[in-house]
């Protein structure tokens, strides 16, 4: 590797792929509903293998369940379903780590913190999960230097 990264902020600024609603793939296109993380999920080291269990007919809500530790799961939603204007910029390093050469192969999921009600539930837009639907490789990408919220109300704008 020869690229110099002067700062993490610059990594984002020089990034390649922007994943927008129009170009986004869907995890419902996966031939096998499992994903392998290429990097650790912060807070959960060593848990790299997950299955995606669809919780509704529409494909708007999924349970992302660890195969390494059955007690760990996350509720995730496709960002496009709840935040259609959300267009995270994936830095080149992440794109390469995921083998993403075409933004059209990327599906973006956001982790939901389930509150007492839907109105009290939030989604983490600062660190989305990007899935290469072609290879089923995934990573939780921290959008350093962006203004994306860690806790965005799920119902904003609806």
């Amino acid at each position, binding site marked *: 590797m020869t690229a110099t990264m002067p700062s993490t902020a610059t990594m984002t600024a020089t990034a390649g792929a922007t994943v927008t609603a129009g170009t986004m793939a869907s995890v419902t296109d996966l031939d096998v509903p499992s994903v392998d993380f290429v*990097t650790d999920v912060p807070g959960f080291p060593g848990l790299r293998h997950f299955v995606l269990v669809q919780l509704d*007919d529409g494909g708007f809500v999924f349970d992302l369940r660890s195969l390494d530790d059955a007690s760990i799961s996350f509720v995730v939603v496709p960002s496009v379903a709840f935040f259609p204007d959300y267009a995270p910029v994936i830095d080149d390093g992440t794109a390469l780590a995921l083998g993403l050469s075409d933004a059209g192969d990327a599906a973006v999921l956001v982790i939901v913190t389930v509150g007492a009600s839907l109105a009290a539930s939030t989604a*983490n837009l600062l660190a989305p999960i990007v899935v290469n639907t072609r290879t089923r490789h995934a990573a939780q990408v921290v959008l350093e230097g962006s203004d994306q919220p860690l806790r965005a109300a799920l119902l904003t704008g609806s």
Partner: protein
Amino acid sequence: MLVLTRRVGESIVIGHDIVVTVLEVRGDVVRVGIEAPRQVPVHRSEIYAQITEANKAAASPDAAAVAALFQGAKPVKGAKPAPGSDPQ
């Protein structure tokens, strides 16, 4: 903690393939450059801590609460999800 003194332009090698270089020192602000393999994520520690905390807060919610929560969910696209069914 290993403590090393470095001047501007000098580097530290971590393992075989991570290089941290001091680029600039201005008052109490230090700019560092990091070269690392692509599979090694590099983050500001306070942001990483926030993400870690948020992930732990979100992990393993009560299944019944999740099912109840999303029965009425209407994503912006307008389609209406059916009540959740959980095969496991």
